[in-house]
């Protein structure tokens, strides 16, 4: 027995330790609560770094696998393991959680203990989602993560928090119920095969699924895809996002945008494509068109927003459209671009929400028209805001460009998409992102300081060393990925390659190789 066998589980459940200790911490001791929350989230990050450095990029199979029987009669297991994509998303989760806590150190006063516990539980759920290799386990984590997020929005949110929380909850729940039915259906399908038994083991199901007739594939794909599309969110299922973001407290927004949205795109790559390859191939046009519409639509609507948070929320619709397009280009460039774009969006949008939160803490407004001339009062803040905006715009040399460009290359050359139009229309999003980001930057940061605005009379203090640390760490990675993305792209190379090979083989009518590989690893 060595630590590697448990490293993944340790990463998943480490937040629980923090929650337990918090249970026995007195409510009144705010400082201790904050420190415990922060320390444990950093601890999770350290564990995720261990995974990162121990992860073998040359090895195509799931790593750090651990399997324990859970419900033996139904062949449901506690089965976890990660490939490069899951690795990057787990590191991203573990990276953003402490920063979200650090960046909003003084933002929450009401029921701080419960709040910190919710954040840690949320982290547990998120890491679990990315690590689960059993569909039932995946579903449990998926739903478990919904609850703390619901409370975070509903209790610590803004004015219309309850409406937003319920909308978020119902939207997501609606999708996931259909997914549950599809999971069960898949399990039962497995039992109808010769010598088959009911199972939710993903690697077994990869092999089983190749026997699925096309019509069943299409139904199950749709059930999964609906759930994931809501989470992404893919146009036109995106309307929960602006409300949820605007109402959520800063840390909630950071995690929601930074990690939760990626679960949708992660789901497409982990489940939809490898389980239902033929259905995926058939539905490429539908999803790609929706993705491209989302890119342009999100950007246009972002342009005319009056609330900064809503603007960032709609920009997410646009950016996530790139990710979906990359996935359904089914090329190595496109999928690699999609994966790194998930990370990029987590960093840039996470940072943007932190930035908005910092100024909200000071002024209690998010209306663009209330601001003006902030750069004069908060010069350091303005520099960070500019760098992150440029990253979001996709300036070469910063992270956003790497993902967008790879996706565009993939979309352009993809034989599956079969048309240059996808890349061309997606490229319009590149123009529009500059329009809305720079316009917002100008109206908030530059120009004269607004007289009579909420902060007109006060002296707006520039960001503190704590806030600079939180943003500075993100900027380091924004530049790192922009200049030397190989550190991260190398990790996910096999994820992309495996999916693409499978798709190409299915297209040619060969037996899915993915399933064979998976069978090998079946426990």
């Amino acid at each position, binding site marked *: 027995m060595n630590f590697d066998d448990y490293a993944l589980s340790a990463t998943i459940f480490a937040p629980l330790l923090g929650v337990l200790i918090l249970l026995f911490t007195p409510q009144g001791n705010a400082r201790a609560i904050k420190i415990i929350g922060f320390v444990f989230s950093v601890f999770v990050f350290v564990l995720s770094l261990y995974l990162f450095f121990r992860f073998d990029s040359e090895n195509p199979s799931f790593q750090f696998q651990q399997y324990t029987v859970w419900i033996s009669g139904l062949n449901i297991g506690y089965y976890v393991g990660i490939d490069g994509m899951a690795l990057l998303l787990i590191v991203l989760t573990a990276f953003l959680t402490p920063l979200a806590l650090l960046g909003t150190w003084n933002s929450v006063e009401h029921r701080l203990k419960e709040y910190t516990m919710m954040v840690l539980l949320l982290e547990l759920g998120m890491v679990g989602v990315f690590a689960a290799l059993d569909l039932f386990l995946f579903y449990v984590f998926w739903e478990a993560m919904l609850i703390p997020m619901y409370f975070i929005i509903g209790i610590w949110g803004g004015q219309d928090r309850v409406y937003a929380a319920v909308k978020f909850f119902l939207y997501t729940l609606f999708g996931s119920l259909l997914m549950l039915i599809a999971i069960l259906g898949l399990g039962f399908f497995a039992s109808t095969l010769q010598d088959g038994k009911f199972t939710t083991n993903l690697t077994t199901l990869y092999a089983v699924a190749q026997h699925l007739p096309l019509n069943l594939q299409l139904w199950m794909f749709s059930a999964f895809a609906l759930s994931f599309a809501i989470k992404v969110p893919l146009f036109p299922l995106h309307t929960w996002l602006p409300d949820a973001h605007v109402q959520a407290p800063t840390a909630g927004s950071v995690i929601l945008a930074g990690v939760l949205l990626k679960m949708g795109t992660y789901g497409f790559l982990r489940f939809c494509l490898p389980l239902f390859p033929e259905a995926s191939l058939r539905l490429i046009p539908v999803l790609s068109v929706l993705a491209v519409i989302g890119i342009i639509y999100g950007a*246009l*609507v972002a342009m005319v927003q009056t609330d900064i948070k809503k603007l960032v929320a709609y920009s997410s619709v646009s950016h996530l459209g790139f990710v979906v397009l990359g996935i359904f280009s089914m090329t190595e460039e496109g999928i690699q671009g999609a994966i790194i774009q998930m990370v990029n969006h987590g960093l840039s949008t996470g940072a943007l929400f932190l930035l908005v939160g910092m100024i909200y803490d000071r002024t209690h407004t998010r209306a663009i028209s209330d601001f003006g001339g902030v750069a004069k009062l908060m010069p350091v803040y303005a520099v960070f805001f500019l760098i992150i905006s440029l990253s979001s715009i996709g300036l070469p040399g910063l992270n956003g460009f790497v993902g967008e460009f790879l996706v565009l290359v993939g979309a352009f050359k993809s034989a599956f998409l079969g048309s240059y139009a996808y890349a061309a229309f997606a490229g319009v999003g590149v123009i529009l992102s500059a329009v809305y980001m720079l316009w917002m930057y*100008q109206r908030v940061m530059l120009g004269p300081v607004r007289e009579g605005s909420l902060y007109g009379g006060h002296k707006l203090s520039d960001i503190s060393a704590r806030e600079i640390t939180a943003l500075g760490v993100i900027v380091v990675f924004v530049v790192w990925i922009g200049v030397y993305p190989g550190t991260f792209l190398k990790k996910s190379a096999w994820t992309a390659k495996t999916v693409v090979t499978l798709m190409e083989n299915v297209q040619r009518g060969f037996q899915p190789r993915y399933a064979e590989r998976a069978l090998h690893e079946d426990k």
Partner: protein
Amino acid sequence: MTSFAPYIVFLPFIGFLVLGLFGSRIKSEKLIGIIGSGVVGVSFAIAMAIFVQMVGEEPHARKHVVELFTWISAFTGTASSIHVVVAYQVDQLSILMTLIVTGVGFLIHVYSIGYMHGDAGFWRFFAYLNLFIFAMLNLVLADNFLLMFLGWEGVGLCSYLLIGFWYDRKFDVGGYAAGTATTNDAARKAFIVNRIGDFGFILAMLLIFHTFGSLRFDSVFNGAELMSIGNQAAFWITLLLFVGATGKSAQIPLFVWLPDAMAGPTPVSALIHAATMVTAGVYMVARCSILFALAPTTLQVVAIIGALTAIVAASIGLVQNDIKKILAYSTVSQLGYMFLALGVAAFSAGIFHLTTHAFFKALLFLGSGAVIHAMHDEQDIQKMGGLKKYLPTTYKTFLIGAIAIAGIFPFAGFFSKDEILWKAFSSEHGSVVMWAIGVIGAGLTAFYMFRLVILTFEGTFRFGEEVHPHEAPKTMTVPLIILAFLSLVGGFIGVPKSFFGNNMIEHWLAPVFEPASTKLLLIEEGVHATEYVLMALSLGIAAAGIYGAWKVYTKRPDIAESLRNKYTKVYSLLLNKYFVDEVYDKTVVGPTVKLSEKLLWKGFDVAVIDGALNGMASLVSVTALWFRKIQTGIAQTYAVVFVGGIVFVLAWLILK
């Protein structure tokens, strides 16, 4: 020595980092100036050393590539997937551009020490300038399209930052009502218009990768050599690349941002918006000469757009009164000449004019900066006059610049412009019409430049008592003198055979353009009698332009007056820059914003989608409310229902 090429690029970046991170704490302007200028100066010295070494090499052995590290790749190891390396390529063309960028850049840095003296953002200014040089060097030294694009976008960013340097100053931007815009509106406009061009560049790169399987210049150009003229892919690639060029180099239809870019401090206008960045499109087309050679249609488009831009911008320049805007339209016009040259496949003529233009236009802008400095930020030439008495050095150097741009023998502009006109006439891709447009444009250029010189420096003072013009400090005049010298002799690097020269620059660049020339079967021309005739003609027209300006603005101001009154419509059209901004605003910008807000957001998002959802939700709750009535909580009611149920079931069982 060529292995030092990356140092040329990275020294200015180090300057940027040092000034950007610690600049606010460096109290001494002198130290900031030394750091900022120093790094660019050292870059220039290295570039010069490499150049000297290259001169000693065989013409075909002058290309060197230095590879650094892998940048963007799918990292899957698949041969056909994308793989881009950060690598710098030194060859005859890129070293020439590097010398211009670092050389002129260095002079403008030094000039800025005087010009920006006392500005609160002194350190920030030099940090941005250093960053600009870094980006520009990436653009010209890149060995692949993607790294070039990094530089391309990078210079766009620096342009944005520097145009909006004094971000809350009022500035009239085309498309905005007077008095409502700030310099940052100009900056944003520049960035976004450029992005529209960049969209073309990105699509071009995608198509290049799809066609050639690589983004490296070598691989792409070697592949292109094997293709035949009229290739479909080459046509689209070059057309899309040219869209990118119209953005960065301010050609029709994307030229609208450059005049507004004058909102930036004057050294910025000189460096970025005259000498270097705006010529990036010219450099890019020249760099891809072999691709353009495959697409005669695109070449035709390039030539037509170039010629049109040259004359349209020159005509606008005739009536403007802002000293910098005149120079801006002049820049747009001169860039048009460069594209005209490229379009008629006279690639080295285009680069030659790029070089001389960098000298004299930087000189003119810096001179205008000295004037503005002296006039306490006044830029309206109608409110100047007689300044030669107060600014003797500025006046003399400015005059040299004006003569050079007017194309008077033997100043720099004469040789480069004449080369273009001659090629427009004689090349099989050119025509008499293009030549004629070029010559008329040259006449207009001479006219508006001397209108500017006369209204600014000659005649009587038209400014108030409170203004006391004074000559600029040494840090500003020395760069002026150096640039004036270069504007005087810079043309000698390209003296044609007809003047018993050997056109050094054409020979130097020949290996770079050789594949394109071979493809297009361009033959080296002998000396024609026609060449002398045309030369005399264009010289005569330029002289006439100067004479006209002198006549109208010193002797007979009434002529200008009566022309204005006689042709009010034309005058207003020119003064308002053909209303291009207004048209864009009415047809593109306004409708897009309206559509997004009214139709997409408030219409579709809020009304349709959320309306449907909330409708469903209320349907559920209405139904639930109705069903809720069953739950009365009264035991008797339940008992009645209970008994009724039993009766019903029994009845059903019996009657079945």
